[in-house]
């Protein structure tokens, strides 16, 4: 067991009250596992990612714990967390395009970053990893502005994994890229796992199809809670949570034509996390909701490694 998250609650403090962006998340992540995290916009995916590495000023942990490789992560202690960052937990941010200091050549920046963490820059290793993602070596002697979006994205990937962290969080790393670059980046992530640069990975996206290609397990979130978590194929082929099902049904696959098969979206909109309703949070939009849904459904393991939070599953 590489990562264990239990009953994690992270709220945002705002003027109007607390936004319960993560409201009791529990899940495990094994060594070597890639976890795809999907869900509608605003369901708390990024919050989870941030909680695991660096909470911003408005986030508060309201409960729960995170254990990585047997050690508890002091996620709300910015200082203590520093020892884990980069070495144990690392991140490929959503904003990879602007994540590199624009006024430093990349080689220098990497060198300074590493030495600030007390590690000497191993150029050979760095270049080997760049080769692996198909980055030419002269990139190191360029400024970030001189790289294309895809190149920057891959460079950030290489940098983030230089210290072989045991957990890598990749938050929406592909959403701004076009399909061909998307594919290359996704492949590179897989390669990193396979080469052992990272042990396990959380891949955050809203593109289920893409997740399916790289993730071993897919976790679906809804309104700050876990809805369903299962091996990728299981989620795609035999989803049990009504939300997952509806989500999949609304995906226009290549080949699906309006004239042939009309897809439907999910009616309604997700609840406000400021003051979430009691009981099952999907209840209002759920076509099969029933009486029991007024009560919050527990996460149950209905099959090996298949967790669902639904009374009807």
């Amino acid at each position, binding site marked *: 067991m590489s990562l264990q998250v239990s009953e994690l609650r992270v709220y945002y403090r705002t003027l109007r009250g607390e936004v319960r962006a993560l409201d009791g998340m529990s899940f495990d992540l094994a060594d070597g596992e890639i976890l795809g995290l999907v869900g509608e916009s605003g369901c708390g995916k990024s919050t989870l990612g941030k909680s695991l590495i660096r909470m911003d000023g408005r986030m508060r942990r309201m409960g729960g714990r995170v254990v990585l490789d047997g050690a508890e992560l002091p996620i709300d202690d910015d200082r203590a967390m520093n020892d884990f*960052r980069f070495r144990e937990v690392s991140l490929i941010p959503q904003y990879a395009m*602007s994540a590199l*200091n*624009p*006024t430093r050549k990349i080689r220098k920046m990497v060198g300074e*970053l590493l030495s600030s963490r007390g590690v000497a820059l191993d150029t050979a290793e760095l270049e080997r990893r760049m080769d692996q993602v198909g980055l030419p070596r002269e990139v190191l002697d360029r400024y970030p502005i001189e790289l294309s979006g895809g190149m920057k994205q891959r460079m950030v990937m290489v940098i983030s994994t230089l210290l072989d962290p045991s957990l890598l969080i990749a938050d929406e790393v592909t959403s701004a890229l076009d399909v061909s670059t998307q594919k290359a980046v996704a492949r590179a992530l897989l390669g990193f796992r396979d080469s052992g640069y990272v042990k396990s990975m959380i891949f955050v996206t809203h593109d289920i199809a893409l997740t399916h290609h790289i993730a071993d397990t897919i976790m679906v979130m809804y309104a700050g809670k876990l809805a369903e978590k299962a091996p990728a194929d299981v989620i795609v082929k035999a989803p049990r949570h009504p939300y997952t099902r509806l989500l999949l049904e609304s995906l226009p696959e290549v080949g699906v034509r309006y004239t042939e098969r009309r897809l439907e979206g999910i009616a309604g909109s997700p609840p406000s996390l400021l003051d979430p309703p009691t009981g099952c949070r999907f209840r209002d939009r759920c076509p099969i909701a029933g009486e029991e849904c007024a009560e919050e459904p527990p996460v149950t393991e209905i099959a090996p490694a298949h967790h669902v939070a639904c009374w009807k599953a």
Partner: protein
Amino acid sequence: MRRYFGRKLLIYGLTFFVAVTVNWMIPRFMPGDPVASMIARANVTNTEAVEAMRAYYSSLFGFDQPLWQQYLNFWGALFSGDFGISIWLFPTPVSAVIAGAVPYTLALIIPSVLLSWVVGNRFGAYAARRKLLDNTVLPVGYVLTAMPYMWLAVLLAWTFGVIAGLFPVAGGYSFSMRPNWSWTFVLDLLHHWTLPFLSLFLVALGGWAIGMRNMIIYELESDYSNYLSALGAPSRLIRRYAFRNAVLPQITGLALQLGTLVAGALVTEIVFAYPGLGSLILKAIQNKDFFLLQGTFLFIVLGVLIANFIIDIVYVVVDPRTRAGMAGAQA
């Protein structure tokens, strides 16, 4: 790169052209006749003598030629370094008058601009996001920038000069001195230079500190800073990067501020009777010395343009983004 500088040069060229043209127009189209004032001062009553003098001075200043000719002559003279003859200090050439004053002004402006910039930026960067310092540096900085130059000058003169008697309040060097490169003289120069310098330095310092503080707060919130802290980089490194990036706009700011700083120097010189361009301009205005005014004005414009150009070059050297943009590099 070439285009960038080409463009800059074009702007500077145009600015210079406009400035020179406006400048040329001053004595010709403004009320007040320099020839009349020359004559009035000479205390001549006799009509013929007045006429003779009028003719003489008109030709001396070139007013007897057609306007376009005067304009061309003006440019011609300019390129041969001839700014005409001062009326107030007749018959000293304007260039000589300016040359006498410029060292003082430069000695005030250059150190105060550079030092205030460097120190102000350090200060501001240091203060940003440090609650306690921020709460002191910020108000002090604002009070300093908000001070009219001359008021700070007057306050300094009053406290350190009149009350404490630590510094002289007028002149470029002691009146008992004759310029030479002995230590005593240099120390004396510095002694006189201190208060005017301080007044310029402090006002500008406040501005830079504030500017830097605001810039760096933005930079510390930027994506690359967040990324670095997510990777656990120590705040020392993050601050260093943020500083470097925040300094860049401050460089452009320096270019923008030059004009104001020059103006500040003028006022300060007047308060401290410092024998630089500021005192000269004031006298030129009071004495309607058009030619001297033209000369000083051109000199300042030229100085500011050159300084701007240097800043532009520096900017290109320090900011890779401009270079990359100019080379049209696309990866």
